[in-house]
């Protein structure tokens, strides 16, 4: 049982902790993602959600272990993690604002050299986000917030990730735009992409997520099954303890 279940795990995080200088920002965390699963990481501002994402990628010094399909993900080497197929759309999107939309997408496929495969991915991303197609030669910084988020997701998809990590994609966006982006993420998940979705606004993602981890003051407070959450009060109970 355990052998087969670890086999279907795309990502496994064991005792992962992180600190900035002497400040411990993340206490040892365990979580896992099954192949094709969309999980949510919820928690209030400052709970350590972004630190957890950065820790998985190795952007910050960490202790503990991250394995991808049974292989160790190197620490302090985000480019190597990306090469394995773990791609993070960071908090604040991290688009290259002075560069054009097309250049941003091109850099998303930095590790790819096959031209035909590149053209295929490019078409796929532009058909998923048709609005980007009209803006290819504009600088990324001139896009609206929603379009920038689409660009950030599109850029991540250019690398054809095996698992996509999204750090608060809803941040600063209008409800209608959030809904559009979440709907695309649901679509990608149904096509088989494993996703970790970090959100502060839990109701947004509980419909999408199979499981949710609740993060509170730097450690996992609970693992919850979204189907059992019936009301906001019940969720508030998890937030407030």
């Amino acid at each position, binding site marked *: 049982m355990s052998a087969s279940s670890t086999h279907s795990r795309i990502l496994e995080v064991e005792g992962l902790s992180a600190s900035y200088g002497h400040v411990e920002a993340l206490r040892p965390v365990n979580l896992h993602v099954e192949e094709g699963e969309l999980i949510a990481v919820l928690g209030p501002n400052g709970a350590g959600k972004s630190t957890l994402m950065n820790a998985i990628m190795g952007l910050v010094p960490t202790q503990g272990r991250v394995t991808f399909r049974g292989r160790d993900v190197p620490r302090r080497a985000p480019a190597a993690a990306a090469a394995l197929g773990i791609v993070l759309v960071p908090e604040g999107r991290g688009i290259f604002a002075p560069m054009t939309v097309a250049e941003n997408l091109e850099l998303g496929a*930095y590790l790819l050299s096959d031209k035909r495969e590149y053209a295929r991915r490019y078409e796929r991303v532009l058909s998923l986000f048709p609005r980007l197609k009209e803006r290819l030669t504009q600088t990324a910084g001139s896009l609206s917030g929603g379009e920038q988020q689409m660009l950030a997701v599109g850029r991540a998809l250019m690398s054809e990730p095996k698992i996509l990590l999204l750090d608060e994609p809803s941040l600063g966006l209008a409800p209608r735009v959030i809904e559009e982006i979440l709907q695309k993420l649901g679509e990608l998940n149904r096509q088989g992409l494993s996703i970790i979705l970090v959100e502060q606004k839990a109701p947004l993602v509980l419909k999408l997520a199979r499981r949710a981890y609740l993060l509170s003051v730097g450690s996992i407070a609970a693992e919850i099954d979204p189907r059992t959450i019936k009301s906001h009060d019940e969720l508030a109970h998890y937030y407030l303890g």
Partner: protein
Amino acid sequence: MFDLVAQSILSGIGVGAIYGLIGIGFCVIYNASGIVNFAQGAFVMLGGMLTHAGMTKLGLPLPLAAIGAIAIVALSGVALERIVVRPLWNRGSTMFVMILATLAAQIVVERLTLIAAGDQPRTLPVFTDLPPLRVFGFAINFQFLWIVGCSAIVIAGLALFFSSTKTGKAMRACSINRDAAALQGIPVSRMLALAFALSAGLGAVAGILITPTQYTAFNVGVPFAISGFIAAIVGGFGRPLGAFMGGILLGVAQALAIVFLGAAFKNVAALSILLLFLFVRPTGLLGSAK
């Protein structure tokens, strides 16, 4: 009088182009890492000295000696990054420490060159040994054409590299947001090494181009680095094109100061321009990059 002024403006443009190339070297490393590399002058000095050594010690023709020198200096740029900058970077040292370390590297290279090659100034033959061209009564010597021509080619090549190649775009991405670049799988540290190589190569080109009109010795690096640094500030730090414009402005101002005020005022002119910009337009001609 008019002739003299026009003639000195011309020579100022030549020297200014050299300052500009050195200034661009500052920008390339600064954009990639935020480090102001004070070892930039060492690259300029090594360019001239190694070309001279290649010609006299190995008997190489000038073009071969020059290309060899540029390659060696570019590699020494990588070595600087690996040996001096990287260990500090990985340890999370502050910018100030890394900048100071490059200054230390400048001194080490300068002293090693003194030990290896002595303190005698050397020069290179002019690239094209023909009498100056006469255009509208002005004498334009061929070395001026070499300097301006090579600078233009180098700048056009750099612009093309940063705008059209994947590696160039990746380097720009690193300068915009290093973490986001790494998340795309871009090898950020290799890009940093490449920035040092490019910048060192630019310094070497500058050193080789200018040596026939002046001389080179173990200690020419620092004055050139200072001029290139001023050019970069005047242009808007981190803006390669701005640095080149700043270099030309600086070169012309120095040339005019020599004509009207005397040779002693050369550095006064340079520092005055620096102060003027710091007071009136601290972000430089094009606005600083960060």
